[in-house]
């Protein structure tokens, strides 16, 4: 549209009786510059709320797994979030593998959620995918929900022994962070 107006404008430039198109063009460009200027100033104001460089620089966390006995679980902090590390029992692994994936709300096999050959270690971000509470189930005395895993007391989500959502309002399985085995008994999260 502005291209049209400029063409028009040059054609009628000598015609002093008809300054309309030139004036319109100037209004439009002035308003456009103003809008772009305002937006380019608004962005820093919004973006300053995003994580700052020092927050982003939070390093990865190394965890020594050797003291965790079978059936025990520990919680470590990574990026300000709790990470659940569970040394699963054979029964728990079996339960997790026996589930028919088609029945799940967020279908994932148990194998997708652990490292091959290290099925006994389940590592997950311990934050309920509903509204961010920390589910119970880390301690032996905790309520573990109806699927022998974790139970979120806030709004009643039940997770199974693979951390998959089975019942309740949460939409997704407990998240598995990126981690790797540095040695057989040490993992590096992040």
């Amino acid at each position, binding site marked *: 549209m502005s291209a049209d107006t400029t063409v028009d404008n040059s054609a009628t430039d000598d015609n002093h009786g008809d300054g309309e198109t030139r004036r319109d063009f100037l209004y439009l460009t002035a308003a456009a510059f103003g809008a772009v200027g305002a937006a380019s100033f608004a962005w820093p104001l919004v973006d300053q709320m995003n994580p700052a460089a020092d927050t982003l620089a939070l390093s990865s966390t190394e965890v020594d797994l050797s003291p965790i006995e079978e059936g025990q679980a520990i919680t470590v902090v990574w990026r300000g979030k709790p990470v659940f590390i569970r040394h699963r029992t054979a029964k728990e692994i079996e339960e997790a593998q026996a589930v028919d994936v088609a029945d799940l709300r967020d279908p994932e096999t148990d194998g997708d959620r652990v490292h091959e050959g290290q099925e006994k270690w389940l590592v997950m971000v311990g934050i309920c995918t509903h*509204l961010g509470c920390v589910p119970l189930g880390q301690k032996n005395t905790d309520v573990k929900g109806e699927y022998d895993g974790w139970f979120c007391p806030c709004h009643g989500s039940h997770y199974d022994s693979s951390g998959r959502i089975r019942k309740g309002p949460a939409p997704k399985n407990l998240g598995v962070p990126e981690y790797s085995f540095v040695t057989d008994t040490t993992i590096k999260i992040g």
Partner: protein
Amino acid sequence: MSSGNREKLNNPMMEWVDSRLPIFSLLQKEYGVFPTPKNFNYLWNFGAIAMVMLVMMIVTGIVLAMSYATTTAEAFNSVERIMRDVNHGWMLRYIHANGSSFFFIAVYIHIFRGMYYGSYKQPRELLWILGVLIFLLMMATAFMGYVLPWGQMSFWGATVITNLFSAIPLVGDSIVTLLWGGFSIDNPTLNRFFSLHYLFPFLIVAVVFLHVWALHVTGSNNPLGIEPKGKQDTLPFHPYYTMKDSFGVVVFLVIFAGFTFFAPNYLGHPDNYIPADPLVTPTHIVPEWYFLPFYAILRAITFDIGIPLTSIVFIPAKLGGVLMMFGSIAMLFILPFLDKHPVRSACFRPWYKMALIIFVVDVFILGICGGKPAEGLWVPLAQFCTAYYFAFFLVIIPFLNKKEPVLALPNSINEAVLNKKVA
């Protein structure tokens, strides 16, 4: 804002000011002689009461900020220091904490008054919408203020509420990160909440100004819901309603003082006297009482919405709950356009009156559900009450528009008032 034809004032000092900025003329016109329907009942006090509470919250908030520390390491302790060491700090904090509850009590009654007497109807739609906007700003302010003491409920309430935004498709997680300024609720979050908690009350003041301005354009509604026809139907605002409002404010403040001094923690949660711990969720997270009905609506949606008998889901349960919760406020925004019945006051609308009373009971039950764990019978009860909440706005009111008979209204406020005296 011009005062029209100004009359000369006797005091030369006031006249000097008034001729340059007609502030005294404006006050005289809008609060002195302002014609006000003469049949107000005590429900008409709550606008003034809410205004008093707003001022009280701002004044106590500003002085509390002088002793508050905005870091996660110090926030909890600085609040305890206010309670123990700062002169009168305990009282100022208890006034501020209980003041938010009483501000909401006043505003809820004010909203009920508007719904009962049809104050939202033509020509007061914009007045009502500005009011709902104030309510929304109040909720945001109260939520952020509750985070500042950095107790367990502060932390986990903030976690739950900010996580609501993660339900938004595609951009949800980015929005949550933006709100937090990190990967969890932490120091940056506390800082921005403090900044905004300080800002929002002044936005509320600005919208209250527009709200009152709009009120002074249309004039007040009244219990009969008919417009004043002349001088015989109205009284000058001063001294009649300055006096009646003052009386109501004093009674309200007596009750408020009762809570503040004798049961200052009755409306709060003991868990918020435990410092925030990101690794331990309290067994039972509940928001402040004034959010409970909306919290119950949020939790009532426990099912995905999609094509039955397939795995196709349009709206997952979490998004559904969030949409319903915000939708419940949206209902208030559009109420003036849903209710087309020509009669304003529920006094002359027996059907609407019945539906509204059930609605109020419904909201109370939702409040109770919101305070209970989301299990057992509380879930279907909350679902049923949520259904009525929306049906009231979207089914019953439109139905009554067409079906509810229009009763004969009194000829004038004056006539109705005089007849009542005789009877």
